[in-house]
């Protein structure tokens, strides 16, 4: 498991990335993130929804109530055009950070 302090920084990227494939409701989003990261990233109700509302307020996501095939009403979130635009620079920033950390680690081990 990744420590909460590090996880906090990656949360936005995780949510935006998982929504890139299509709209999801909160529970499904948390489950997908956990599955795709093999349990390294886990979102609880308390950590997921404040983030979703924050991203929605920024206009990066849009939530709308939908009824599933089983008749359940769930609030589904989808990426807005603005959210899609933001995803690429955030990805680049993280890739740069990982590269920098990798380089630093190599230097330290040399």
């Amino acid at each position, binding site marked *: 498991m990744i420590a909460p302090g590090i996880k906090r920084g990656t949360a936005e990227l995780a949510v935006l990335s998982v929504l890139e494939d299509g709209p999801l*409701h*909160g*529970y499904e989003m*948390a489950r997908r993130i956990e599955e795709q990261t093999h349990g390294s990233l886990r979102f*609880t*109700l*308390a950590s997921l*929804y*404040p983030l979703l*509302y*924050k991203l929605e*307020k920024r*206009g990066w996501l*849009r939530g709308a*109530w939908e009824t599933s095939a089983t008749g*359940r*009403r*769930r*609030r589904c979130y989808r990426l*807005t*055009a603005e959210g899609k635009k933001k995803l690429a620079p955030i990805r680049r920033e993280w890739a740069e950070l990982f590269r920098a950390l990798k380089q630093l680690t190599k230097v330290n081990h040399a």
Partner: protein
Amino acid sequence: MPNWEVLVREKLGGGSLESEKLREVIAEFAGHLEETFEQLRRQGLSEEAAVERALSQVKNWQSLGRKIQKARMKEDVMTDRVKQVWLPGFLTLFLSLMLLMAIQFFGPQPVIVSTSGWRMTAPVAVIYVPWLLSLLLIGAIGVYLAGRAGASPRAMLLSILFPVLPYSVFFVIWIPVSLILDDHIGHNTMRSALLLGLVAWVVLPGVALLAGGLPVQIVKSRRASV
């Protein structure tokens, strides 16, 4: 299985969220907890243990409530309708009035159109050509601001046409009502004045606003659909 909505409501409390938003949050949290609970039950946990594990996702409900309020209350200060319709609408109306005033004071002489062919004979229509041209830009600004706030195509159209709404009310409601109520006005003269006024202050500005705003709206909706 517990009633998740009742449980969440009890734990979250009301705070200062308005009731509709609070109901939405409660329903959303209840749905999340219900699915967590069902998953845990499928994994073989007892009902009691599954409820406990589902609720353990939130360590501090008060703190969560505060975070939710913070995230959603700022949204209340300026609702979507304000951002998508009223703000762009009043801004473009203000801009168009200011420009009209400036053009009346400092601009070239207006074009005067009369039904009788003689310029000084009423009824006449006063057309400020530079103002009509400036409305192209104002229509584009209106639709840009509305679109940026995520407005629907209908709200974008309303924000384009907002600056002509006061003139429409004046010519479509105020003058016809005055015509009906006041017997001293020459009805023949007023009818042609009304028609000329409608063309000069509603139709022409409306066309100019649409000519400026619609291309921006089309570009915006194409980009959104990509």
